[in-house]
C-alpha cells in the first residue's frame, strides 16, 4: 500500500510542456451502464494545485466521472494517469486521491476525531503523529470543540467540515468533492464556498469539485469543465467560458444569453431585422449576445460597429441590482436586456449593442 505521507514524485510526461505539469490526466474515458452511454470519450487534465469544477446538469455523467477517478466505478475504455502512474488499474484504497461525499459518509460509530484519524490509523501511522495531525485538521475546519461528538450529534454544516478534514488529513494529491454543498441552505452555502476556496489555496491540493450550480462553479473555480450528456462541451476559466462560450449550450447554461440565429453573406451577418459586418465565411451562423451587452440607446450618436434596433417591452423581471427586460422587435426577434434597476423604462425602446459582443458559437446537437 502506498504510504499516504511521502508524496510519490511524479515524472512529468515528456509530451507536455505547459507551465503547470498535469497532475491527473483522464484519457478518452467512456462508460456505459447497460446500453446507456453515461460518458463518451472524455479527456481532461488537472494541474497541480488547481481548482477544477466539473459542471453539468443531473444525468450529465459528472458524478460518474468523479467515481471513476476515485476508483468506485470502472471505465469501459480509456485510462486515468496520475503523473507517470496508471491509476485506473488500482483499487481505490491504493490511490492517493480522497473524496468528500455528497452525503458526507461519516462513520456513525466513530467520534469526530476518530473519523478524521481513520485514514491515518489504517495506514498504521504512529499514535503521536495521528493525534497531532487530527488536532491540526480539526483546527483548520474549526471543529476542535466537537472532537468527541458522534456525527449524529452535529449539524449538516459541521458534518461537512469533518468530512473535509477527514479527507485532507491524509494529504492527498487530489481531493474530489461530489456536490458537497448541495445539502446546505443558501447562506451557509455561500459562506462555505468562500471558506472552501481559501482552504484550497492554503493547502495547495488540487480540487476536483462536482456541481450542477453554475454560479458556484463561477465563484470557486480556476477552470470549469462543462459536461453535457457525457461529453465535454468546453473546458476553460470562468471568465473565458462566460465571455467566449464555445457552444450554444454553454452560452445558455452559464448565465443568461440571447441566441441569435443568423445568415452570413458577403461579410455581413443578417438576423431578422439586424445586420452587422463580420469577417466570416458565408452560411448560417449562431451568435450569443449577453443581456448586459445590450444597452438602451440614448439620444447620442452610436459608437463604431454598433447595431441598433427598436422594440416594445413585453416583460420586466427584477433581479436586485439589475433588471432583465424582454424586448420584442420586428420579425419575431426577442432580445433580453440587462439594465440597472433604477432606470425608468418606456414601453417603446431603442436598443443598441456592439457587433464585437455577439460571440459566434457552435450549434449544440441534440444528444440522448
Amino acid at each position: 500500500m502506498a504510504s499516504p505521507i511521502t508524496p510519490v514524485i511524479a515524472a512529468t510526461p515528456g509530451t507536455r510542456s505547459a507551465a503547470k505539469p498535469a497532475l491527473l490526466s483522464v484519457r478518452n474515458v467512456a462508460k456505459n451502464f447497460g446500453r446507456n452511454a453515461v460518458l463518451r470519450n472524455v479527456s481532461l487534465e488537472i494541474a497541480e494545485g488547481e481548482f477544477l469544477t466539473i459542471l453539468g446538469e443531473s444525468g450529465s455523467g459528472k458524478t460518474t466521472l468523479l467515481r471513476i477517478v476515485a476508483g468506485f466505478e470502472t471505465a469501459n475504455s480509456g485510462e486515468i494517469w496520475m503523473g507517470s502512474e496508471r491509476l485506473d488499474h488500482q483499487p481505490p484504497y491504493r490511490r492517493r486521491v480522497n473524496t468528500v461525499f455528497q452525503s458526507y459518509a461519516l462513520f456513525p460509530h466513530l467520534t469526530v476525531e476518530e473519523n478524521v484519524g481513520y485514514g491515518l490509523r489504517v495506514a498504521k501511522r504512529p499514535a503521536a503523529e495521528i493525534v497531532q495531525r487530527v488536532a491540526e485538521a480539526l483546527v483548520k475546519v474549526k471543529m476542535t470543540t466537537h472532537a468527541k461528538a458522534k456525527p449524529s450529534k452535529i449539524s449538516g454544516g459541521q458534518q461537512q467540515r469533518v468530512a473535509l478534514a477527514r479527507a485532507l488529513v491524509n494529504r492527498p494529491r487530489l481531493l474530489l468533492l461530489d456536490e458537497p454543498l448541495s445539502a446546505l441552505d443558501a447562506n451557509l452555502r455561500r459562506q462555505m464556498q468562500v471558506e472552501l476556496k481559501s482552504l484550497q489555496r492554503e493547502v495547495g491540493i488540487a480540487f476536483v469539485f462536482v456541481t450542477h450550480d453554475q454560479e458556484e462553479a463561477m465563484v470557486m473555480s480556476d477552470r470549469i469543465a462543462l459536461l453535457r450528456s457525457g461529453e465535454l462541451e468546453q473546458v476553460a476559466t470562468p471568465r473565458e467560458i462566460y465571455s467566449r462560450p464555445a457552444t450554444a449550450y454553454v452560452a445558455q447554461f452559464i448565465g443568461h444569453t440571447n441566441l441569435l440565429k443568423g445568415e452570413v453573406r458577403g461579410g455581413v451577418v443578417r438576423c431578422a431585422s439586424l445586420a452587422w459586418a463580420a469577417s466570416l465565411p458565408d452560411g448560417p451562423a449562431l451568435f450569443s449576445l449577453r443581456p448586459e451587452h445590450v444597452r438602451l440607446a440614448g439620444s447620442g450618436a452610436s459608437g463604431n460597429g454598433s447595431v441598433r434596433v427598436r422594440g416594445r417591452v413585453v416583460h420586466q423581471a427584477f433581479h436586485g441590482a439589475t433588471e432583465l427586460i424582454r424586448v420584442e422587435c420586428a420579425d419575431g426577434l426577442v432580445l433580453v436586456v440587462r439594465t440597472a434597476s433604477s432606470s425608468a423604462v418606456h414601453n417603446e425602446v431603442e436598443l443598441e449593442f456592439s457587433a464585437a459582443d455577439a460571440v459566434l458559437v457552435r450549434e449544440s446537437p441534440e444528444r440522448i
Partner: protein
Amino acid sequence: MFSRAYKTVVTAPPLVWVTVFLLVPYLLMFCYSFWSVSPAQAIVHSWNLENYKELLQKTVYWETLLRSMWIAARVMVFSLLLGYPLAYFLSFYAGKRKDLLYQMVIIPLWVSYLVRAYAWKTILGSDGVLNTLLQYVHLATHPLDFLLYSPFAVVLTLTHIYTPFTFLPIYAALEHIPRNLVEASHDLGATPVQTFWKVIFPLSIPGVVAGATFAFVLSLGDFLAPLLLGGPSGIMISNIVVSLFGAAYNWPLGAAISLGMLVIVVSLLFFSERLEKKWSFS
C-alpha cells in the same frame, strides 16, 4: 387522528389474546410452582418453597440446565459462523443472484420442524446415509455411533434449524449499512479486510446480537431435537419439564423449572436489547 371506538376495536382482540393465552397461563404456572403433589397424586394448594428448594439441591437439574446452555451456546456459535458469512456474501457480493439465494435460505423454514429433525435421523443413524457412505469409501470399518443419539446430533440439528434465524437479522443489518461508508473507507486507504473489521462488522453488531439471541434462546428451550436425536446423553432441560408435566405427574416442580427458565431467558433478552441499542447509530 383515530376515534376512541376505532382504537378500542383494533386493540381489543390482541389484548384479549395475550391475556387469555399468555398472561393467565403464566400466572397459573406461577401459582403451581408454589404448590405440591400429595402421595395420592393430587395437587395440594398449600403455598411453600419446596419445589425451589428441590431445584437448588438436586444436581440432576443443574447438570441438565448447564448441558442445555452448553448445547445452546454451541448452536449459537455455529449458526453465527454459518449465518454471518452467508449474509455477508449475499448482501455484498451476490449481485443479481441475491433474491434467489435469499429465497433458498428462507425455503427450509417452510418445511416442518419434525421433517427436518427426522431427516437428520435418516442421515446420522447406524444404517444411515452418512455411515453407509463412510463405510463404502472405507473411511470407517464399522458404523460410527456418536453420530446419532448424542449431544453432537442435537447441536447439528439445532444449528441446521436455527441458522436461518441467525442469518435473517444479520442480513438485515448488513443491508442497512450505507454503501458509501464502505466506499469512504476504501477511499481513505483501508483494504477490504480493514474495512470489514473497522466499518462493516461494528455496524452489523445489532444484527449479530439479535441472531445470537434467537439461536441461543430457541435452542435452550428446544425439546424435540433432544427427544428424537439426543439419546440419554443429549437430554435437555425442556425434556425434564415435559416429563414432569407428563409421566412423572409433578406439575408444581415442572412449573418451578419453567419459571427458572423464563427468568434466564428474559434476562438474556433484556441484556441483548441493551447491547443492540448501544451499537445502533441510525
